[in-house]
């Protein structure tokens, strides 16, 4: 795509649950978002585009005419299109449960859904059944290097089993890791005819960081530049370059989730240098798993206030999985935000050791899980699951543009379009000040009674002054477009990035405003269910708008 040539562009994100379309136009010299619309995945993009075009014509016929926008001709428009690749299933086979779990920890940092087998859990027939399952797209066969005493005896059999099964499925990809690579039986695998790939890598490491050959090998098997979660980090990088800000992204979707980080090039870097981008795309980040397990249900229940019955909550989660667009009322959105919190926490556990030490300046929120929530409730869902003292701006990819923009292969072209769209691309949610206070109690259900300081937010009408009470959560009205100075003064010292008695930070306004969060870091919910519910209900009252009579 050459940005200079067309004046209209379709940006399409075809997710597993949602199809989203935006019409981008260039009425003068820069690109703008003219309209967006999202619908269930079964709806064709052309239908959405035509509807948007009709609305644009109705709102500003002159603009539509000047751009040549016609509702009956949207299919002819050039397009950027990202798709969510359907999840693939990986069979992990190892000589011991210990090794299998180690392999699974690498696989968890990829989009693969894993099914795990070892002689401790499966006999050879059951393992063969797993590998022959038509739903399994690849095998990860691994051992330690050297092989441990708990797995050594099984390696010859496993090598022969996997080779035999893979020869019956010539298209099956196989990754072999560790000392088992030297087993003679694998010779048959190397001679196998067919389209299936064989990748051999070193053994899995405990507490693997970014340098993880197993993870890289698994990711390479399903690499797809048009996949939405492959493209989004690239767009994030372009945003970091354009804004010169450290960015992070939290995305929770139907079939997976994404954490991504982008650091702009240093000032000393040559012009046009790229941002440093890293990401973790994991099936663990899916809003609701295809098969709900009790642990996942409990994780969601911990964040709900209305559900008292685990079976009923499981029903609602299964319904959310089966009909992801249904029930967008208040209770339905609350359920989504509770499930999103649980998904983000699973993502963070998978990404332990991978997150950068320095916090982001801006956190972006994306994915269908956040599509309908009130802005403050959405912001709180991210703050609850991202507990870092400091100040951060929050924004939302409401128009689902990050993925289509990320499919632009040329980084210069991509940066140019992102720069044009920067003001339209994201909905500013606002800012959050998360502070660790000396008086915060052990869990979040018991705010301290006495103020430990004061927050003053400058404003044209004198600003806002807020007493700082440990454990409290407050929202200060700070509309989009406002940039303000927030000064914190305390007697006991307050932990932002560093502990200080006085600190002034810059905060950005947004549709949610400024969230002032003095709850404990890390956040611990009360163990007792009644106290937990009353605590969450109190936060709910702050972040959800009043009922409109």
């Amino acid at each position, binding site marked *: 795509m050459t940005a200079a040539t067309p004046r209209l562009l379709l940006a399409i994100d075809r997710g597993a649950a949602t199809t989203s379309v935006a019409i981008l136009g260039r009425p003068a010299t820069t690109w703008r978002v003219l309209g967006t619309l999202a619908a269930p995945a079964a709806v064709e993009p052309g239908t959405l585009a035509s509807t948007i075009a009709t609305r644009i014509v109705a709102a500003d016929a002159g603009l539509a005419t000047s751009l040549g926008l016609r509702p009956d001709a949207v299919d002819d428009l050039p397009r950027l299109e990202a798709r969510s690749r359907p999840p693939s299933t990986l069979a992990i086979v190892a000589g011991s449960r210990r090794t299998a779990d180690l392999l699974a920890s690498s696989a968890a940092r990829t989009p693969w859904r894993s099914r795990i087998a070892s002689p401790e859990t499966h006999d050879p027939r059951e393992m063969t059944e797993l590998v022959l399952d038509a739903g399994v797209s690849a095998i990860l066969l691994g051992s330690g290097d050297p092989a441990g005493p708990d797995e050594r005896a099984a390696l010859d059999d496993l090598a022969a089993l996997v080779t035999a099964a893979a020869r019956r499925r010539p298209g099956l990809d196989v990754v072999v890791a560790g000392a088992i690579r030297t087993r003679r039986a694998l010779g048959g695998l190397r001679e196998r005819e067919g389209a299936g790939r064989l990748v051999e890598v070193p053994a899995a490491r405990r507490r693997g960081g970014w340098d993880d050959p197993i993870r890289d090998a698994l990711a390479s098997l399903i690499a797809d530049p048009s996949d939405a979660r492959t493209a989004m980090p690239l767009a994030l990088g372009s945003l970091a370059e354009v804004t010169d800000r450290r960015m992070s992204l939290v995305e929770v979707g139907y079939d997976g989730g994404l954490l991504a980080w982008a650091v702009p090039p240093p000032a000393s870097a040559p012009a046009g240098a790229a941002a440093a981008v890293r990401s973790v795309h994991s099936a663990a980040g899916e809003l609701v798993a295809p098969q709900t397990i009790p642990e996942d249900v409990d994780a969601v229940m911990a964040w709900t206030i209305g559900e008292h019955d685990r079976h009923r909550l499981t029903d609602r989660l299964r319904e959310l999985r089966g009909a992801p667009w249904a029930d967008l009322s208040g209770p339905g959105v609350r359920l989504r935000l509770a499930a999103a919190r649980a998904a983000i926490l699973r993502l963070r556990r998978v990404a332990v050791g991978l997150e950068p030490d320095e916090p982001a300046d801006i956190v972006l929120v994306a994915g269908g899980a956040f599509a*309908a929530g009130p802005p403050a409730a959405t912001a709180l869902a991210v703050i609850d699951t991202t507990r870092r003292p400091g100040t951060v701006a929050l924004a939302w990819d409401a128009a689902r543009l990050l993925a289509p923009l990320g499919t632009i292969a040329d980084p210069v072209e991509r940066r140019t379009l992102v720069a044009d769209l920067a003001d339209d691309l994201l909905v500013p949610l606002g800012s959050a000040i998360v502070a660790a206070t000396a008086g915060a109690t052990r869990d979040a259900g018991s705010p301290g009674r006495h103020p430990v300081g004061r927050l003053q937010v400058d404003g044209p009408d004198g600003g806002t002054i807020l007493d700082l009470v440990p454990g409290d959560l407050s929202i200060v009205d700070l509309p989009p477009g406002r940039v303000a100075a927030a000064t914190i003064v305390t007697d006991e010292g307050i932990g932002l990035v560093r502990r200080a008695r006085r600190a002034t930070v810059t905060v950005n306004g947004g549709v949610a405003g400024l969230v002032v969060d003095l709850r404990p870091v890390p956040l611990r919910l009360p163990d007792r269910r009644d106290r937990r519910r009353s605590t969450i209900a109190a936060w709910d009252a702050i972040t959800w708008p009043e009922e409109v009579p």
Partner: protein
Amino acid sequence: MSAPSGLALVAAAPLVEDGVELRFALRPGDRAFVVPGEPVAAGAPIAGRLRDPRTEVLPARASVPDTARPGDRWTAGPGRGADPDAPEGELLFASGRRWRVAGGEHVETLEAPVAGVVTAVVAGSEIRIATGARAIRGRELIGGTTTGRLEVISPRDGEVRATDLDVDLAGAIVVVGARIDAEAITRARAVGIRGIVVATLGTRERRDALATDERGRAAVHGLPPFAILVLEGAVRLPIGASTMAVLDALEGRTVALVPEPAALVVDAPSLALPAPDPTVVRIRSGPWAGLEGAFAGLAGPRRVDRGVIVETAWVRIGDRPPVAVALGDLDRRIAR
């Protein structure tokens, strides 16, 4: 008359599919009786599935040809020093000069539920059959393939109790309406009902049904075929009106419930079935959940609850004035 503008934004799915490929899972040790390209009649045996599969290790003295390959059948034939204790089954792999074999004693015959042509046979994995049968897809099937005469014993929003089920229904696949409880499911099995078609199934009932099914597979003598086709999901909803009309039209006919795709299938390609009105939409949740009405155009973004703004559409329910319903709460059925 043309459909109101915006109807295409409501998710649509075919009510009945004409012609469907069915998949039957095989496990290592199971035996296919058919080959690709072979036509099969309804009721024809297509595979023998082991109810007690296990791994056997062939004795070192067992004679296995050098040309043997994983997936081949192994039988200790007569003569040639045959060992009467040597197992038979499907060769898995050889390690340490001894073959592993998937075998078992108790075989259950799988029959083709409808006529078709075998399109694929993969030992230890699957059999696929292309059929001209018509299918009503559901969300999930619990249990295995089963056939029976279709009996509608409840209105589409009804709930059947255990006392409603008696031995007169033996051999039938019953349509039970919106919901069924665990006691009624147990009763259905006990009186010889072959299958249940229900709109929704709660987690508790689903868990119990899965557990019973698992126990039945493991039992020495097995259980008669039984399956539950869940049409919609977990939260209570009636069967859609257009779906119910088709089920009513099929009453008395032999139908099958199949797992992949989860569906009710019937071998009646020329049977006229009621076609759905594509402008009728069903409401899945909210204050009008379960009701159906006529789509009356887009209503634009609206606040549906505290702070929740969604795209909505007008729906005319009966004689009432149109109501604005979230687009995501609507679905409809169309003719293919």
